[in-house]
């Protein structure tokens, strides 16, 4: 459903992505692994329209390259950015309500959201307990869950997750990843950007390894996890 072809992105004179090809199919979790500065976030920001690019990005056979970020979001490609970006001065429930702008539009009254809220509270029960709290006062893990839940409120057709494990305790990381798998099982394809390669390879179907703006390696996640170079560089396994 998403096809990226020969994507080139630069910041000023610095070229960051040098011709990326990438696919995300219906129902799969695809992960993108790479070290700092490999261009993972730039790739996501290119898909969501925040970076000037050349090349093609087809979403359901329509080229979305060059469209504005909110227009791309309205097609159902919802990005949960690195660092969570909850709206700090709004409550949990207000944050979730704002997530419905993408499919229901701007409006004076928010209308009946109980169905959508029930759905996300079922996946993230912790958010229901906190629903009147201002978002800045949540813990890091709760903020991450809120950020994902807010995207779910917009009925995403493709979820772009950027480093959902960043800055979280290992137990919380486990929980967040369980939820991601659950969301995927309910029918949403996910493009997952991660530095935590072990976790990402475990939950995903296919993987791309990004190095200095190029796809170095791609394939089935299980095979990628067995690859010597990947094990050494990203999984911390030392070759003897």
């Amino acid at each position, binding site marked *: 459903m998403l096809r990226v072809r020969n994507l080139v992105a630069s910041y000023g004179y610095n070229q960051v992505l040098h011709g990326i090809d990438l696919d995300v199919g219906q129902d799969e979790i695809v992960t993108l692994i790479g070290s700092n500065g490999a261009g993972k976030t730039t790739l996501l920001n290119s898909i969501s329209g*925040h970076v000037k690019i050349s090349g093609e990005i087809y979403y359901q056979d329509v080229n979305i390259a060059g469209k504005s970020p*909110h227009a791309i979001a309205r097609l159902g490609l919802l990005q949960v950015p690195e660092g969570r970006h909850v*709206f*700090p001065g709004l409550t949990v429930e207000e944050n979730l*309500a704002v997530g419905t702008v993408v499919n229901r539009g701007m409006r*004076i009254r928010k209308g009946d959201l109980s169905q959508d809220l029930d759905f996300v509270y079922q996946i993230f029960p912790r958010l229901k307990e906190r629903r009147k709290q201002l978002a*800045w006062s949540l813990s890091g893990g709760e903020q991450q869950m809120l950020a994902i839940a807010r995207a779910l409120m917009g009925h995403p057709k493709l979820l772009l997750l950027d480093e959902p494990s960043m800055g979280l305790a290992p137990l919380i990381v486990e929980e967040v990843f369980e939820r991601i798998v659950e969301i995927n099982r309910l029918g949403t394809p996910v493009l997952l950007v991660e530095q935590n390669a072990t976790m990402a390879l475990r939950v995903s179907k296919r993987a791309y390894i990004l190095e200095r703006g190029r796809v170095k390696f791609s394939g089935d996640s299980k095979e990628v996890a067995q690859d010597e170079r990947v094990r050494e560089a990203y999984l911390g396994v030392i070759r003897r």
Partner: protein
Amino acid sequence: MNLQLLVSGIAMGFIYAMVSMGMVLIFRAVNIVNFAQGEFLMFGGYLCYMFNRQLHLPIVPALLLAALAMGVVGVIFMFTSYWPLRNAQIRAIVVSAMGASIVFKEGARLIWGSIPVTVDRVVKGTAVIANTAVVQWQNIAIIGISFILILFVYLLLERTFIGHIMQATAQDRYMASLVGIPVVFSIALTFALSAMLTGIGGGLLAPLFFLNNTMGYTTNAKAFAAVVIGGFGSVPGAVIGGLLVGLIEAFGGAYISTTYQLVIIYVVLVFFLMFRPQGIFGTRIQEKA
């Protein structure tokens, strides 16, 4: 306690509250102190003069039309003075707003001349309160109308969904675009609201003090003081700060010196900066690592 001074101080306070609240709305939306906010007051007053005295409409419809026109002015201001520079350094935008304030000032002079003008009162005459104080009805009208407008804007921001969308855009523009908010529309709406609120104040103020095209300058200085005293970025703070500035000005002017009204306000401002720099309300939101 001098009741007469109290009433006129509160009335002026509400006018400043409308300016400083407008300033805070824009500050929260785009992180820029709008040094052309006082010009919105002046320009709104002149627009009201145009509808009321030049086109001979009754004052209430004139105020409403002036407010609507100020909404358009606010959007034009946003697209000319802020939007092209949105990715530039903050000081570039501050200077651009100062430039815009000159355009407003000289524009008003070109259109309406430099002779001070006035508009009709919403309510004519005076009232006698508690057998001692003679109060102009216009002051009472200012207090009532401003209070309702301020409350309306506050509730719009805090209790309606569109208000939450505007807040979300103000708090994190990048994220707002990712959830599908047309950021430029949301920001334009904030500028329109800010200009309307402040502009209507000009029409209310005009019968008490004549309008002139240079009044925006001191208004800016007072509104800025009100914003700092109230707590930067806080909407209730801006209102309380505005009221305080109005009262300080009224009583300071009567008991100390009218020449040094602005100095007295700034002395209070300096005291706040020394002993409570976060202002009366401080900030509500903290950034968590």
